[in-house]
């Protein structure tokens, strides 16, 4: 039973560029959430997708957008990258938004 899988594991981008991160939820899960974890901080909620729609959003600018596909997988897109976007991006899945969430191992994004 595959857990939450994320790709790529590491990524280096330049300021101003755009990036797409991918996530496949745990088998049986239909809700995907994205979190940003800066160094020395706890994960911060970006948004949640359920039934291919953004259902909740945290305090992140519109440069952060996402998508959920019919197979429940999801993408996180970040436009106009800033140095401060460097972080570990975690994807978490659940069933109908219920806890507990299961997390992937994350994508480490470095913006130079």
């Amino acid at each position, binding site marked *: 039973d595959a857990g*939450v899988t994320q790709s790529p594991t590491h990524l280096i981008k330049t300021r101003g560029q755009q990036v797409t991160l991918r996530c496949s939820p745990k088998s049986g899960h239909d*809700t995907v*959430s994205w*979190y940003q974890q800066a160094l*020395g*901080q*706890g*994960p*911060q*909620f970006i948004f*949640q997708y*359920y039934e291919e729609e953004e*259902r*909740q959003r*945290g305090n992140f600018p519109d440069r952060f957008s996402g998508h959920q596909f019919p197979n429940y997988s999801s993408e996180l897109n970040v436009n106009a990258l800033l140095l401060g976007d460097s972080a570990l991006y*975690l994807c*978490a899945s*659940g069933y*109908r*938004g*219920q*806890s*507990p*969430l*299961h*997390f*992937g*191992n*994350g994508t480490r994004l470095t913006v130079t």
Partner: protein
Amino acid sequence: DQQVKQNSPSLSVQEGRISILNCDYTNSMFDYFLWYKKYPAEGPTFLISISSIKDKNEDGRFTVFLNKSAKHLSLHIVPSQPGDSAVYFCAASWGTGTASKLTFGTGTRLQVTL
């Protein structure tokens, strides 16, 4: 505004002893609390949770206590084992269907020594 706080960045405990990790919250709307463990290069792994209608939940070596009046919860690990060495995050949520929106603390690094 840090709504979930873990004031101890690190904790060192001898193997076999009790580890107590603490967490405070400020938002009285929170009604569900979780503890996650994180090893380096891995995502957080769910450990144990507690609903606000309870004051204690136990699962093997792990027990979570909730004091709603003090807005405080703690995780007890007894006995502590070297494999428990990791960063522990406290998280909270509220409202039906909003369980995906977890508010995390900044974590406590637990080191269990031999």
